[in-house]
């Protein structure tokens, strides 16, 4: 079975995000970029499946500028076998990503697509679900445990209020959650091996997809700073404030 893992290049989780002065987006110039942490978890899962003999090939795919090749290289250094870069310099919305991934999936025929549940830049949490619908494949989202059988997978999902275990027929789309695993470091020998692994470059047009945005960003602004709280003397005052000022109780 092939495993397809989409990996996104995002602003590193350690970087303090700054809004651009013209409010068109967040600052990405001279900012450290890394693989989306949820995608790292997906790569780790795929590599573990390969090590366990459940997968023959792990393919990392990224949609983005030329530099997204570095993100693919990270996946290759973790143990993925080859990469596909769908090069596109502009913004790509979740639906366009899902369409591109659908085209890649139809060409590659993976048994499972492992996505991060969301990317830490826009936190859209849409791509896996849209991809599943476009392909007509079952989906298992927010997966914290995954067992792959011959023609079906058993997935434990993190849902509101606890865990839910479901079975999905393969091929399927899974989106992985934080607790699925702890991604490995790329070792030096694997980094050196990754250098020789192939990365195919394609364009959205090659895959018959028009990635033009359908949404317009009006303005990006920082959340308003939190106001200082107030101290209350006793429970009676607290209840009064909640009722009369905050109006959260009747």
């Amino acid at each position, binding site marked *: 079975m092939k495993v397809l893992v989409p990996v996104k290049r995002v602003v590193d989780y350690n970087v303090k995000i700054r809004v651009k002065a013209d409010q068109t987006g967040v600052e990405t110039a001279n900012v450290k970029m890394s693989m989306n942490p949820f995608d790292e978890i997906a790569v780790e899962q795929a590599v573990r499946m390969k090590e366990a003999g459940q997968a023959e090939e792990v393919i990392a795919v990224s949609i983005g500028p030329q530099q997204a*090749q*570095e993100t693919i*290289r*990270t996946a290759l*250094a973790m143990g993925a076998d080859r990469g596909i870069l769908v090069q596109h310099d502009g913004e790509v919305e979740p639906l366009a990503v899902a369409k591109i991934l659908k085209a890649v999936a139809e060409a590659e025929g993976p048994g499972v697509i492992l996505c991060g549940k969301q990317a830490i830049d826009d936190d859209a949490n849409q791509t896996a679900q849209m991809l599943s619908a476009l392909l007509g494949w079952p989906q298992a989202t927010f997966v914290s445990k995954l067992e792959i059988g011959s023609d079906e997978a058993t997935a434990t999902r993190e849902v509101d209020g606890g865990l839910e275990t479901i079975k999905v027929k393969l091929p399927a789309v899974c989106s992985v959650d934080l607790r699925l695993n702890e991604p490995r*470091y*790329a*070792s*030096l*020998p*694997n*980094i*050196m091996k*990754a*250098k020789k692994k192939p990365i195919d470059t394609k364009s959205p047009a090659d895959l018959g997809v028009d990635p033009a945005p359908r949404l317009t960003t009006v303005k990006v602004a920082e959340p308003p700073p939190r106001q200082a709280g107030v101290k209350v003397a006793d429970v009676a005052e607290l209840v009064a404030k909640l009722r009369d000022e905050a109006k959260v109780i009747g």
Partner: protein
Amino acid sequence: MDFSVTEEQKLIIETALRFVEEELYPYEEEVERTDAITPELVEQIKQKSIELGLYAAGMPEDCGGGGLDTLTMCMLDRALGRANMALNYTVYRPSNVLQACVGEQREKYLLPACRGEKVDCFAMTEPGAGSDVRGMKTFAKRDGSDFIINGTKHFISHADWADFVILMAATGEEDSARGKRKKITTFLVDKGTPGFTLRPGYKNVSHRGYHNFILDFEDCRIPESQVLGEVDKGFDVANDWLGATRLQVASLCLGRCDRALEHSLDWAANREQFGQKIAKFQGVSFKLADMKMRLKAAELLTYEAAWKYDNNCMEDMDAAIAKLNATEALAFIADEAIQIHGGMGVMSELPLERIWRDARIERIWEGTSEIQRHIISRALLRPLGA
């Protein structure tokens, strides 16, 4: 000129930084407080270092090393250099000079050192022979096919961890343009060899948990098969194989500068006095600018020298400039970092007082700042006959 960092180098740095944060930083406080590192911890870090291929990363692949070039090793040493010396050393790089091993020496020393089964230490300095290396009194007298060694070495780092010593000893005298000078031979001496004993060295200001030792040799008999390289050619062996150890020191300093500057930026951007962030005071912000400038210069000099080393065109002066600049940059940056932090800077809760203390040795070992200036000035003046 191409100053870009390759994808592989970026990944190696990322792995090394994560290793430092997850495997070394958590133990720094304990090592600093106890002035010791437990054998269990050494073993734990070493195993992880081997798994990740950080161990012996600079040794050639056919010896079981990682085969990294000097430039990439400098980047790796920079990342690892953030942690304190004792923890940094557990990640381990065997002395490059072991590449001079031939025949059975490879199986006995070089390969086990790359695999992590044996650790070396390097013994050159003596109480009467510091910068004046050739002034060494430790003497190896030939006796048939053996040598009998007598003398004392001191300031020998991590000799307690070492399974064998790479020892430099005088084996005679020869005439030179400036009169008689000693001929030096390099020996491989196993710990436990009769006549070789080890005692603790000096307590010192730097490097908690990473200790120096005094090595005594008293009629210590060593067969000729333990000579590394050729007899009387000890300096040739060092020149041919020792590698860019001065750049290693420079790189370690860069890592410490990185850490001190990061702490300083974070502190300046968050600490408030007189109703504003202290970074708003020019007295603080200009210090940060100077620190960054010194660090950048040290980085470029180090990487350029390393690149030249890899391209076989590094001169002694290049390494001397890089080492001199990086060690002095560290002294400056560590001191300014503390000044920016004020009283908090000298408290052991932050790594700054440790970086500041540890910085002092960097301007002394691997050739003092004065020796480096001597090398640079001689390279400039010799062609002028001055």
